[in-house]
């Protein structure tokens, strides 16, 4: 593999909460331009895995190299790392005390130290792209779930990260809003944005994913292209899981 294109190199990753071992050894590599979709039953460690990637969870074993640097090593700048790794949450987590525009500009101003006028211009441009420029002055409480999540995506994209992490971005949405959010993510993938997506949307995983990781019991039980994993799953647990989530009536 060429070092240039490798974003994350994960070796023997482990994470325990007290006695409970949630991640039991993950080895994988995430390259630039990939759309890695993580699927698997609840409690399989999917969320914990991607939360380790931006150090919202500190791994208890193994190593994660990001652009060649060990992110769990002493002296590694966590804040700088998080600037390069955008995160979108299941519960949106827009800042409730700030307007939509401020939600996007605050980290540009406070973290990237971009001049306020330039930050606002940038934010408005991004809002226009997701069709929400008219909501710039609104507060999160005035928005629908779908609108909140699209803004959360814009907020993360505004930082121009090297990779975007999506932690079940549509799981908290009403069914009719899932489409608008997935469309935004699909468009980003189309532009070549590297992403890791934890999701239960299997159709989305098949269509947009370039690689599928099936997690079960804290390990990657199977991985491959969407055609491989969905078309001809090798692992029994994968087969079992897919038969339960892909409903054919």
């Amino acid at each position, binding site marked *: 593999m060429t070092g240039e294109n490798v974003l994350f190199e994960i070796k023997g990753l482990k994470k325990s909460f007290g006695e409970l071992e949630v991640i039991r050894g993950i080895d994988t590599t995430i390259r630039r331009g990939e759309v890695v979709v993580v699927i698997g039953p609840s409690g399989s460690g999917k969320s914990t895995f991607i939360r380790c990637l931006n150090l919202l969870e500190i791994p208890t074993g193994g190593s994660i190299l990001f652009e060649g640097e060990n992110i769990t090593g002493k002296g590694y700048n966590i804040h700088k790392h998080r600037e390069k790794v955008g*995160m979108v949450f299941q519960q949106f987590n827009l800042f*409730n005390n700030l307007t939509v525009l401020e939600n996007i500009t*605050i980290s540009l101003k406070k973290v990237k130290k971009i001049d306020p006028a330039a930050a606002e211009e940038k934010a408005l441009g991004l809002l226009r792209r997701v069709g929400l420029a008219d909501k710039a002055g609104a507060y999160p409480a005035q928005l629908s779930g779908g609108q909140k999540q699209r803004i959360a995506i814009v907020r993360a994209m505004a930082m121009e990260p090297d990779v975007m992490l999506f932690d079940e971005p549509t799981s908290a949405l009403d069914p009719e809003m899932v489409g608008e959010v997935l469309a935004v993510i699909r468009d980003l993938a189309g532009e070549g944005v590297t992403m890791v997506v934890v999701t239960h949307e299997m159709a989305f995983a098949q269509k947009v994913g370039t690689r599928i990781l099936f997690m079960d019991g804290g390990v990657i039980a199977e991985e491959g292209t969407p055609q491989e994993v969905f078309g001809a799953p090798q692992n029994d647990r994968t087969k079992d899981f897919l038969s339960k989530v892909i409903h054919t009536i």
Partner: protein
Amino acid sequence: MDIIQIFSEYYKYFLRGTEATVLVSLITVFFGTILGCLIALMRLSRFREVSGIAKVYITVIRGTPLLVQLYIVYYQLHFIPWPEGTVLGVELARVMPCVLALSMNSAAYVAEVIRSGIQAVDYGQTEAALSCGMSKTQAMRCIILPQAVKNILPALGNEFVTMIKETSIIQYLGVGDLMYNNGIVVTATYNPLPCYYISGIIYLALNIVLGKGLDIFERRMKRSDR
């Protein structure tokens, strides 16, 4: 009738007392809130020693009467050369220990109110702030505290109202607050009941004004709600 008569005759005493009460209350609320913020942050610190100190402080202050605290501060800090001079006719050497004791007392209660407010803010807000690259301090200042303050405003208002009433305790150190002057008028007239009515009405008026102010502030903070 006695009330009107006594007030028109002795209003200067009540007025002077009210001035002192308002002044001491304002200073106490100001320092009490700042100190309270500090103790709340200490209480939430991940360093066990730091949060332990805050915990002990809160336990001690909440577990002892304000009057005892007032006397202890006054006598314990007797060696401090308080600045000379007077405020509203009272020596600073008496006012300052009072303000200090009241602020220290208020801070313990304010700290617990603030702590509950901070903990009530969804942890997802902190995670979102951190994942945007903000430091913990930035997340606290820009995202968490503004939301916490909005949530605790009613409880904080309660504490301020309590503080205005509790300042009446400083009369015991001879500080000329409303209750101290009330005492002078009682002695002069031998007619206590109307005096207490007058003082009661003044305290009530002060707290109604404070309540209105807090209402306005609360409504302004509510802008980010639906």
